[in-house]
């Protein structure tokens, strides 16, 4: 068992290294672009507006980063250190250092700006004290603010369902560039909207870096740093005194309402036990996991991002014909990470029940797949509504086609997912949004298009032969192949689960590490 785990860990480390390199590569590129931009004397006349806008964006990113981390539940909980005789002041310092250490990506961008200004003949080394002091003050203010915002949001997320609302806001922020692109909004138009008066922190420190309004810039910069320090210390103190689990307990709703109860009991009207009981349990469980609800919401919405370029090209764009099925299948793929690729992740140690109770393990897997299928019905409906809002073709025929394609994709992916669920299980914390095995992610990305080859073939045949009959025929063959694939994979997964039950349960019983996160 150990060598396999060792290999998996090495594989995960390589994957992490590649993604880290890519992530910082992107920010390195941004930093380089900033250097080129600010070293150009021709643009100097627009630097105040430009730098204010860029620093505003940087501030937004800087503040949203820890908030996303907090919403994921992935930040380190310093309250656990309160059991030891560490002064609160030092804990605050640790928090600030953590914020600083996780800001390397932004430092790359800021460094680009600083180097650009130093290379600019209009500024040069003579302006170095202003440029560097302004940049350092800007960074300090943001680090302090982000520490406070994180502490504040952590409490906020525990108390309320704001976490989910926040995630939708993040989604909107993330797609906003696409929306600007769609509505032909020009960058120069947006730049005019940037608040660049010296009272704003980004403008005050930007002006200081550019040697414009130096004294007001210094005064406002110092004032903003004091505000940030006061805010972060206050919020950090409140966070330390916050009894999260107790407060959260008061907020949690217990039994479902009548309508939900009827919906949960629906499988029992159609199917026999234990399958019906298992499906009912899955539906109840999934709908009570905020992480699932968020992923579900995103799976309905994110597909539209894939088709934005085609929407922009107009109604005659050839890709638009495939847009609705693509959006739905993409939604299914997004759900996979927290459902069928790792079916027992949320069950954790309770998965031993499937081996202790007099039920077939096969039924447990089928129930998990069926419950995702049940969830796909409202998902396709929502995706269709969103598609209609964006003028994506969604005639009744297209909806039927989407359901069929989604169903075929589900057969292939569930088959693979059942194998990965028993061979690469991972305990998942329902409160953590970002907890996802790297190997699972890569598996999803690598395997997903390959197994859908028969579906792709059907679309290719339709475009070549222009025949709906050929298309339907190949889809039928794909469905039959999918069915066979699913049953063979299911048998293999059941056999594997029974043989490997010990390691499967051991993996699923793994708890958070000693440096536990919230």
């Amino acid at each position, binding site marked *: 068992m150990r060598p396999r785990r060792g290999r998996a860990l090495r594989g995960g480390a390589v994957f992490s290294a590649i993604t880290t390199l890519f992530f910082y590569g992107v920010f390195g590129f941004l930093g380089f672009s900033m250097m080129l931009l600010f070293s150009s004397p021709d643009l100097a006349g627009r630097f105040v507006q430009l730098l204010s806008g860029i620093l505003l964006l940087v501030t937004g990113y800087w503040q949203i980063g820890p908030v996303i981390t907090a919403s994921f539940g992935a930040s380190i909980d310093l309250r656990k250190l309160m059991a030891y005789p560490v002064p609160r002041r030092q804990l605050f310092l640790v928090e600030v250092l953590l914020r600083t250490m996780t800001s390397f990506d932004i430092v790359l961008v800021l460094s680009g700006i600083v180097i650009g200004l130093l290379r600019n003949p209009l500024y040069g080394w003579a302006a170095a004290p202003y440029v560097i002091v302004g940049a350092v003050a800007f960074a300090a203010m943001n680090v302090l603010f982000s520490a406070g915002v994180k502490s504040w949001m952590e409490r906020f997320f525990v108390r309320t369902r704001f976490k989910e609302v926040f995630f939708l806001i993040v989604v909107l922020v993330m797609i906003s560039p696409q929306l600007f692109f769609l509505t032909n909004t020009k960058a120069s138009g947006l730049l005019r909207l940037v608040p660049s008066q010296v009272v704003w922190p980004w403008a005050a420190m930007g002006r200081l870096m550019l040697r414009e309004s130096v004294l007001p810039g210094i005064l406002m910069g110092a004032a903003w740093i004091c505000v940030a320090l006061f805010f972060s210390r206050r919020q950090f103190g409140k966070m330390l005194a916050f009894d999260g689990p107790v407060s959260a*307990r008061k907020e*949690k709703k*217990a*039994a479902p309402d009548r309508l939900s109860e009827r919906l949960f009991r629906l499988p*029992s009207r159609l199917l026999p*036990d*234990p399958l*019906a*009981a298992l499906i*009912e*349990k899955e539906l*109840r*469980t999934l709908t*009570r*996991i905020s992480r699932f609800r968020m992923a579900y919401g995103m799976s309905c919405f994110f597909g539209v991002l894939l088709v934005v370029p085609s929407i922009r090209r107009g109604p005659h764009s050839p890709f638009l014909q495939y847009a609705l099925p693509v959006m739905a299948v993409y939604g299914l793929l997004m759900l996979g990470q927290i459902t069928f690729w790792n079916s027992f992740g*949320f*069950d954790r*140690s*309770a998965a*031993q*029940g499937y*081996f*202790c*109770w*007099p*039920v077939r393990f096969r039924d447990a897997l089928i129930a998990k797949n069926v419950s995702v299928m049940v969830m796909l019905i409202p998902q396709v409906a929502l995706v269709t509504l969103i598609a209609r809002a964006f003028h994506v073709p969604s005639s009744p025929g297209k909806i039927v086609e989407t359901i069929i394609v989604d169903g075929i994709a589900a057969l292939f992916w569930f088959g693979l997912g059942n194998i990965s669920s028993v061979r690469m299980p991972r305990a998942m914390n*329902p409160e953590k949004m970002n907890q996802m095995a790297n190997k699972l992610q890569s598996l999803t990305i690598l395997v997903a298009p390959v197994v859908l080859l028969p579906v792709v073939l059907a679309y290719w045949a339709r475009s070549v032969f222009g025949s709906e009959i050929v298309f339907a025929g190949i889809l039928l063959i794909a469905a039959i192949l999918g069915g066979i694939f699913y049953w063979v994979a299911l048998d293999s997964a059941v056999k594997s689960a029974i043989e490997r*039950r*010990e390691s499967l*349960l051991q993996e699923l*019983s793994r708890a958070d590490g000693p440096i536990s996160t919230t």
Partner: protein
Amino acid sequence: MSATMSEMTPAIAVTNLRKVYSGKAAVDGLSLNVPRGSFFGFLGPNGAGKSTTIRMLTGLIPATSGTIELLGLPMPAEETAIKQRIGLVPDDSLLFDRLTGLEFLEFVGRMYSLERPLARQRAVELLELFELSDEGRKIIGEYSKGMRKRVAMAASLIHRPELFLMDEPFEGVDAVGARLMKDILLDQVKHGATIFLTSHVLEVVERLCDHAAIINDGKIVAEGSMAELRSGSETLEEVFVRTVGADREYGKLDWLG
């Protein structure tokens, strides 16, 4: 096998049971007979092989070698039939945190082939019996450790099993809860059920059990009725300490005084 013959067999009959991990035996040639209708305590220090044994008995992990018979049926050949007749309280939680106590008990009942209305009715009654009626509509994830244990025990009772396998059932349970659980278990034994439990708390075993076995380094080092084990004037604790070889002076640290 006829019903009468089946009733004559021990509730648990284990012969030469072994479980080896990376060349090291966690359970090493364990043989054990648990009479029907007995309250059997399975004792041992940490890492002695108690949980491994109970996990093999429940079919959670396969044995490396040896034979297991539960209620006269061979394991794993008759696994499903055996599971239908045993109740289980494992050490790790077997609870789904996102279900309410009521939903979970009903779900477990349905896993044991009870009709939904009957499972529901028994779930309500069990919650009442375990003094959890007020908490029944709360999500299990919000329960305290003691409440979780009580729900787990309630779940093990829902299908009225003949044999209970319990790993540290009283761990984390307060005195009131433990008293309640003990009374319920004693009542089950009175009605013919067999209970096999592991516990670190020797007083609990001493008070409840009529038979016990002590395991150390994967081997049974003492076994018998409570009277046999405590022959002479020894308490169970003294027997335990002596048989596991812990009756020696422990080292001291100067700075601890």
